[in-house]
């Protein structure tokens, strides 16, 4: 079946480069965003993908045509873009990055003047402008040249340092191995770790956009960094995704932790220094709940996706918001997922507690999570969810984002991917068997509906 490889939604516009994601579409979105920003200054950054150069040109052209001042950070991580929007007092920002998607994809992520991804209401405004195609095009005498921001990296590094208790880290002189996934973070991260007096073993640091492995920081994609961290005798290993918003960790012994660990590992130092509520998604491991409980704090869950989680976090007055994908935002200091800040906080925790990463991870409750993805075309996926909802009507399903069923010690979440034509099924339970059983049941049900011979 031919799928339209394009998604326009809360996470911006995302698709397969080629006949689906065309420069004309990008120009239209840039014009819509420039109109939404009312011709104000807009900061842009891109990742290392080859297609990002083409889309950067399309974005620049669209923004200039609406009279915006364009401040181009070049190849830069998304969290730096978020910082720069606030630091420069810009009206918004666009990150040109396929983020965790493979190299054939690319996307635009839209940030508002507060430095956060557009929330649902703002996204709707942007989409209304896009669909109406009534762009505020500027006359020739209102067009401005493209600018750069010269010392923004220094100011961002200063901000990271201020968010950390850096001295204990400096005293320890950690050995850190980082896999940059040939993305946008290499140069910035080495300056950051240098400022923390860490010794860096960089892996896949060339910003080529030719990814050595799939870019999401999952355990499976961290095999290379895991074995290198062990050989290098590292205190800690980490993998950043292409635009630096997600991070996964590897112990010094060479065990790749699931990206589910990133949020609870960061939560420990954050909640110790700044107690407050935590926000996470319906699909994220319960480990963070156990950790928050031990600090006397509550966890609120919301729909999957950075824009919704950060937005909910700001509304709840949370001090931390993040997800099982390895994205963590340290609210209200930062309002975007920031892999480098997460790395700094985990180093801080190791330094102040004097414990290894394996020990910190071992201190978290042992839960088993199972995830499965089923290819599911957009015209079928919502029918699957509706049938599943009816099937479990007696189990008090939470229908905010797909279907979520929860029991005292386990939960099951079935939802349509926000970024790809997939059905995502996730379950977590105290035993592997129980988690697997929950996922299997949902997967069999979904297949029956998809292939048209469901029972109910």
């Amino acid at each position, binding site marked *: 079946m031919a799928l339209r490889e394009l998604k326009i939604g809360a996470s911006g516009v995302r698709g*397969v*480069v*080629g*006949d689906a994601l*065309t*420069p*004309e579409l*990008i*120009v*239209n979105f*840039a*014009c819509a965003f420039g109109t939404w920003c009312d011709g104000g200054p807009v900061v842009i950054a891109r990742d290392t*993908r*080859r*297609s990002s*150069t*083409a*889309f950067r*040109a*399309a974005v*620049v*052209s*669209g923004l*200039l*045509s609406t009279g915006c001042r364009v401040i181009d950070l070049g190849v830069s991580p998304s969290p730096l873009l978020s910082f720069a929007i606030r630091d420069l007092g810009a009206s918004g920002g666009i990150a040109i990055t396929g983020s965790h998607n493979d*190299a*054939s*994809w*690319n996307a635009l992520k839209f940030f508002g003047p507060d430095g956060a991804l557009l929330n649902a209401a703002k996204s709707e405004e942007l989409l209304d402008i896009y669909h109406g195609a009534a762009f505020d*095009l*500027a*006359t*020739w*005498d*209102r*067009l*401005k*040249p*493209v600018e750069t921001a010269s010392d923004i990296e220094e100011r961002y590094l200063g901000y990271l340092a201020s968010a950390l208790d850096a001295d204990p880290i400096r005293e320890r002189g950690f050995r850190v191995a980082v896999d940059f996934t040939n993305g946008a973070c290499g140069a910035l991260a080495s300056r950051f770790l240098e400022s923390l007096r860490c010794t860096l073993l960089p892996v896949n640091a060339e910003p080529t956009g030719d990814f050595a492995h799939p870019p999401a920081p999952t355990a499976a994609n961290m095999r290379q960094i895991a074995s290198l961290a062990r050989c290098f005798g590292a205190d800690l290993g980490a993998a950043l995704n292409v635009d630096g918003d997600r991070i996964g960790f590897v112990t010094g012994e060479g065990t790749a932790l699931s990206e589910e660990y990133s949020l609870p590992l960061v939560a420990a130092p954050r909640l110790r220094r700044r107690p407050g509520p935590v926000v996470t998604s319906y699909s994220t491991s319960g480990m963070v709940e156990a950790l928050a409980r031990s600090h006397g704090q509550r966890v609120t869950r919301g729909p999957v996706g950075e824009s919704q989680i950060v937005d909910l976090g700001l509304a709840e007055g949370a001090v931390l918001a993040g997800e099982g994908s390895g994205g963590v935002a340290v609210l209200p200091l930062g309002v975007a997922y920031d892999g480098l800040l997460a790395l700094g906080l985990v180093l801080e925790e190791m330094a102040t507690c004097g414990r290894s990463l394996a020990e910190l991870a071992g201190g978290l409750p042992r839960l088993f999570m199972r995830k499965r993805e089923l290819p599911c075309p957009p015209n079928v996926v919502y029918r699957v969810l509706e049938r599943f909802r009816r099937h479990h009507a007696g189990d008090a399903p939470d229908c905010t984002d797909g279907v979520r069923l929860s029991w005292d010690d386990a939960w099951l979440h079935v939802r349509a991917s926000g970024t790809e034509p997939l059905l995502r099924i996730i379950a977590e339970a105290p035993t592997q068997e129980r988690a697997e059983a929950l996922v299997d049941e949902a997967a069999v049900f979904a297949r029956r509906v998809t292939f048209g011979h469901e029972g109910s």
Partner: protein
Amino acid sequence: MQQPLSLKIGPSGVRGVIGESLTPQLVTSFAAAFGTYCGAGPILVGTDTRPSGEMVKQAAIAGLLSVGCTPVDAGIVPLPALMFHVREVGAFGGISVSGSHGSPAWNALRFISSEGLALRANQAAELTDLYHQGFYPRVRAPDMSDVRTDTTSSTRHLTAVARAVDVERVRARRFTVATDAGGGAASVPTLRLLEALGCNVVSVDADAEAAVPARPEPDEASLAELGDLVRRSGADVGFAQDADADRVLVVDEQGVPLGPDATVVLVVQRWLERKAGPVVVNASTSRMVDDVAARLTCPVHRSRVGEAHVIEAMKEHGAEVGGEGDGGAIVLPVNPCRDSFAAIAVILESMAASGRSVGALRAQVPRYSMVRERLLCSARDIAPSLRLIKSLFSGEQIDLTDGVKVTWPDRWLLARPSATEPVIRLAAEAPTEAEARSLVNSVLEVLSPGA
């Protein structure tokens, strides 16, 4: 539906108003169509100094990358230099982002073929057809190329221009030359050329290298200013170029503008002195060219108006020199396009070789008066209007190569549709201005009564 008068997609490219019709969407799609037409190879992209140049250039780059081409950013560059560069390096094509002589609100894409020529009529029609079909196969991410930068266009081009003239002879004269590049793409390269020719340069612009657009094409006021500068500085000649530097107007040593037709007349005269041969000019160019060529017993052929038509006819007739009466001279062995740099070099060589002033060179040719008018005319009214004009002159000698041209022994009248704007262009040449004016008025009275 209202037809926007601000957009023109035609043989000389895509021309429109910034903020209205020349949108980044349109530019991206047209660039994708052009990239598809040329094939997945290097395409040079250059701009003039207009503020909208960057926006249009980035849209063109995005469109080219999407179909697998490698855009080569040539920066701010005169059109003739960009065309030369395309041919010399064997690029698959070129896009010049320049509003040329249009007002600053306008900008345009002009497409350059792999031979370094403006697209021929059939090529332009094929490109427009591709655009209208809207099918440009996009490449997937792994096959996407990257942007390159190459700002050597002017150096390459000026080397070739200098090779075509007797540099030592010009240098020996140590001419003082007044320039007005209008803050256009020629600003810096013109200084370089005149330096190479040993000239002392005085410029209208306080900072000649600043290249901030002052005016898109030489007008009465700017020519008067240049004439003033010539008189004050005692310059031997003044040159005024347009924004993309394909055309140049000449001011004589008295500070008097010689008129737009003088450029091609002076260039043709010098080139035929060096090497006799056929000449091609367009239907709207002054009879002075015929007089110059007749003295050297060289034939003159007339083509349709438009650079591409002139060049095609030059090739057909084996002409080395020719051009158009708007200040656009073509010296085929140097560069097969209207080239203000080649014109300047040849005119200076003519002054050096003859030992005469530019005013004296011009005075060798009989004087006619030319009157030009433009008549706003929506696209659907153009054909009926031309039929009406033709009927006005039934019984006279009429040529329909390009619009309607009526010729008498010592005068002519031309009415033709513009290729760049929704207007009918009128031109008449006669021994006196009153006679030329009355020819034009005879048409205006019928087509726009009361105006």
